[in-house]
């Protein structure tokens, strides 16, 4: 199987309400896929289904040829399926350095050790430095996260994901809430993601989507209504209809 990651016929209903209907998509290694859609299209539900936060009513999630549908969220992370959060989830009292160190120790199965020093490992320290350096976060490495700019927090969110050495990365609106002056740094970080990584990005900022994605999937009312090149998406009649039906998002596609 050449696809690194695949979902097949993924469906989810809450009571009588179907929020995801028969979603199938596949991503090879190195994929840069953007998932877009109007508010309420089921994007977040889709992410939660893929990461294992909620169980699908039907369908399969396949990672690296292995069916992970029955695995919980934590085990999927350990298999290389990693996500970032739409609203950053960071530890406000810890520094970026501590975040990345903890993540690396966790990846190596050393995070629950009592008889070890947190900062004692020079290999880990080097890797931390590498990740923070790539993201341009060295200057704030020892500041409390609560004190650094939101754009930097978003970069750290990406850094944590990278420190897990993922195979598949789900970016849930990586630039949400970031002032436009700081978005170039987010974009730069996205450009520097490891080439072999399969990335699925959910994003409202269409400029970012067009620059980043090689392929676009449009979700509306829980269904995929379009799949193709970024250059084709704006011209598609179904997509225009879906967005125009939702006044608030109409301008972002036009």
């Amino acid at each position, binding site marked *: 199987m050449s696809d690194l990651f695949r979902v097949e016929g993924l469906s989810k209903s809450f009571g009588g309400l179907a929020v995801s209907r028969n979603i199938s998509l596949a991503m090879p290694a190195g994929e840069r896929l953007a998932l877009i859609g109007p508010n309420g299209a089921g994007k977040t539900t889709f992410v939660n289904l893929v990461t294992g936060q909620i169980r699908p009513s039907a369908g399969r999630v396949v990672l690296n040829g292995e069916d992970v549908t029955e695995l919980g969220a934590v085990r999927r992370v350990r298999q290389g399926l990693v996500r970032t959060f739409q609203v950053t989830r960071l530890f406000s009292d810890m*520094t970026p*350095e*501590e975040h990345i160190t903890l993540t690396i120790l966790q990846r190596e199965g050393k995070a629950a*050790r*009592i*008889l070890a020093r947190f900062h004692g490992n020079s290999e880990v320290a080097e890797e931390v430095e590498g990740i923070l*350096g790539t993201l341009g976060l*060295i200057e704030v490495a020892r500041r409390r996260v609560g004190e650094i700019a939101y754009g930097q927090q978003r970069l750290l969110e990406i850094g944590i994901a990278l420190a897990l050495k993922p195979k598949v990365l789900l970016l849930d609106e990586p630039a949400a809430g970031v002032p436009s002056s700081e978005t170039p740094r987010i974009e*730069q970080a996205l450009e520097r993601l490891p080439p072999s990584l399969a990335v699925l990005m959910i994003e409202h900022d269409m400029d970012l989507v067009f620059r980043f994605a090689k392929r676009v999937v449009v979700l509306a009312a829980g269904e995929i209504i379009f799949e193709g090149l970024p250059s084709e998406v704006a011209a598609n009649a179904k997509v225009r209809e879906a967005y125009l039906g939702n006044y608030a998002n109409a301008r972002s596609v036009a």
Partner: protein
Amino acid sequence: MPTMAQTEKLAAAPIPGSRAVRDVVGVILIIAAGLAGFWLFPDNLALLTRVIAVALLVLSIDLVVGYCGVATLGQAALFGAGAYAAGIACVNGVTEPLTLILIGAVAGAVAGLLMGTIMLRAHGLAQLVLSIAIVQLFHEAANKASAYTGGSDGLAGLMVGPLFGVFEFDLWGQTAYLFGLALLVVIFIVLKFVVSSPFGMLCRGIKEDPIRIGAMGAFVFPVLLKMFVISGAVAGIGGALAAISTQVVGLDSLSFELSANALVMLVLGGLGSLYGALVGTVIFMGFEHVVSAINPFHWMTMVGALLIAVVLAAPGGLSGLADRVLPSRQRNRGGRA
């Protein structure tokens, strides 16, 4: 890449060094305060030993509440488990004090494992209610199993052998107090290492956001359970120390009231810093001792007023107040370890 013009190197970590100095100073201060108590209040050593035993209980609560964010009002179950285990062992002929402490630690750890396994199934308020239910069950079990525990009479007249075969537990409580102080210092140092280890950082992460920890690929339950076991061992040692020093084990060591008071002491001193647990215990029990002598009828009112004043004036507890007042501690990036 204009943004990359900045330095890409981290300076060698300066933090552990300064933090180590701070902790060494802290430990020296604890020893100094302990010895000062020994010289200044030679007639109150029994009370001071009791303070140390309770301080161990409060430290154990800090581990689960302050570092993991698990609320509990049943920690005395672990303290009492240690006290009764040591007491029962002593009645049955085990009189070596260090062995009794070890028995208390093991009993507390086992009780912590049990308590954690049950409590960690629930969250929030339900978790708190479970902790109360557990301490009540322990209390009732000790009451009913009178053949082993002496029921409501408790175990009395425990004859503990001399420490290291040399130092008898004297009438004035000198040996018991110095033994307790040494135990407290050793446990404090061990816990400092525990909370600043990778495990301690993981716990702090869980306290703030368990979902984030899950998204990092770490399971929350086993980490918290491990902390419950450590916390149980510490509380159990406190209970065993109380049993050895007073030569009595009663149902009050397993009570909801003790659990609640200990939590109050922790809040008073400040959550999530081991110093706060010690400060809170000393202030609370010292205040209680003085005020109850002055006014035996309304001392609880005064304690309540003190608590309200502290919570309103210093939400981080008394040690949090020290953090704000002392600039040298503030510089430490607010990192609480």
